[in-house]
């Protein structure tokens, strides 16, 4: 039984990655152990400091899914306008796509046969 995956072009050993990952975790743990000794959990030390401003409540602080990747969607607005259109939620439309795809596939196979 071997850990090595030979793809025919290169080889791949997950064990090496796991060993590296464990070593990195150990190094991180080592530095963490050498951190501030005076830290006390659940005291004022653990409070959020926001330049002296009042810290919002947890639900106001949380960045919700709608706000993530805003720039990505704004840039690709035109793509999404096109791609969202067929997603009508109407089963009749879905079946129409099925009919069209079947017809195109059948015609392609028949024409390819004639060309041959």
């Amino acid at each position: 039984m071997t850990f090595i995956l030979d793809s025919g072009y290169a080889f791949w050993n997950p064990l090496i990655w796991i060993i590296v990952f464990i070593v990195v975790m150990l190094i991180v743990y080592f530095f963490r152990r050498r951190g501030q000794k005076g830290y006390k959990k659940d005291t004022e030390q653990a409070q959020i400091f926001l330049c002296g401003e009042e810290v919002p409540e947890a639900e106001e602080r949380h960045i919700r899914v709608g706000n993530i990747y805003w720039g990505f969607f704004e840039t690709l607005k035109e793509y999404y306008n096109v791609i969202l259109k067929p997603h009508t939620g109407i089963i009749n439309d879905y079946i129409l796509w099925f009919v069209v795809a079947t017809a195109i596939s059948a015609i392609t196979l028949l024409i390819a046969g004639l060309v041959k």
Partner: protein
Amino acid sequence: LASLITQSPILIIAIPLAAAFLTPFIGMVSQKARNTLVIVSLTFVVFLVFALARDISINGIHVYTLGATAPDLAIPGGFIVPVRIILEVDGMSVFFSIIWSIVSLAAAIYSLSHIASETGQNRFYTLLLLMVTGGFGLMFTGDLFNLFVFLEIASISGAALIAYRTKFADTQEGGFKYLVVSAIASLMVLFAIGLLYAQYNALNIAYLAQVIQYTTLDKIALALFLIAFTMKTGMVPLHLWFPDSYSVAPASITGMLVITSHACMYAAFRICFTLYGGVIDAPVVGWIIIVFGLLTMFVGVTMAVYQKDVMRFMSYHAVSQLGYMWIGVGVGLAVLGNADLIATYGREAMSGGIFHILNHAMYKPLLFFTGGALFHYTGTRDLTKMGGLAHKMKWTTILYMIGTLSISGIPPLNGFSSKILIYESVYQFHPILTITGIIVSILTLASFTKAFHSAFMGAELPEYKGGREVPRSMIIGMVILAAGIVFITLFPSLVLDRAIHPAADALLNQGAYINAVMGAIP
């Protein structure tokens, strides 16, 4: 044990079928006994599937003829064609049945707690076991008509299971859509079977593969088969129903629906490589699959990034990942007639695609199960309403991370192993396939990071304080799949040598499939 292995193809189908009919009766007496029956029967089936897989790896294709004096007597005396119902199990069938058996067991265990508060549990488990029966039958059958019958069993039970939670309106809509799509796909399959039967007067796949001429009617039948099965797998642009149905089912059933897609993919492979393998216009069909596969990958992932419903988000990712498999196997099909190209990269591309099916069958149901766990805890699928759940759902968080890293192809997880095989091999066919694959992988990681941050990270929200991690059986269901991921991660070459390459070779070796039933080709 030898007798058990000989009878195993029919037992693997019959045991869940018998359990399905027993379940409502036992359920009336004791719920505990019913649950035990479901789990024990599925566990025994897992054992039988592995025993059969071992036997096939040693002795080759396993033929089981129903009603014959000996199970391997495929053609009765005085006949020149096989007329009985035949089960034919090769490396490909048994590979898919391994996936099917493991995920079925995990889904059943997960369901014990997941649907514990629902009514009609007897019906739920009956339908679940019928679905399992349909899947195994689809993979083992050696004739086209029974392929249609088992497809129907899996589809109808699947539709009923999607609509199981009748208190939600969207489940009824999702179930209805699945039923309509499945019915039309099944009718197209039946029509295609009719076209072949009208010409060749037979339904046995091995016999048909030997005599098929690739006439105009055969080509129309091939188009019908292909589109029907690809629609059932959710290939773009036939994926539109997919998130509508998959996102509303109980999470355990969504996991099962994912592997139902794989079962339909198996049927498409069987039709292209085995039934039509000797006559097919491989480059044309291969390119059709590759182009649609590319669209599936890209449209699936870009639609997934856009979603705010956790289950719709995961459904679109399921669509996207199926594109990788189509591309891998599509490249193998495109070069099918060229032995040199098959040896150079075709076989590895197919192996990569098939390997990705196995990986997908582990991480995708796992991710759907974590989505179900989020719903169980919060009572919503809306990611905008979630946050800080890692504080209370530690197990779910870890299991979600395993699934996320795997689906995104991050080393050293198993998703990377299959993706690297696909990337390296399809690059030689056309570099654009690899480039698209890598872009899709990046977008996959980005979108899962977004969902992870939305649901799990941040301060604990007041509405979710005081909750508890999901029940143990749901955790066990998820852990079974995560264990599968870890195993494949650690031993990729073992899986490749023992399961993936035999499955790919079974597809490429059409003659062996025919010979197992028909004897030597005259």
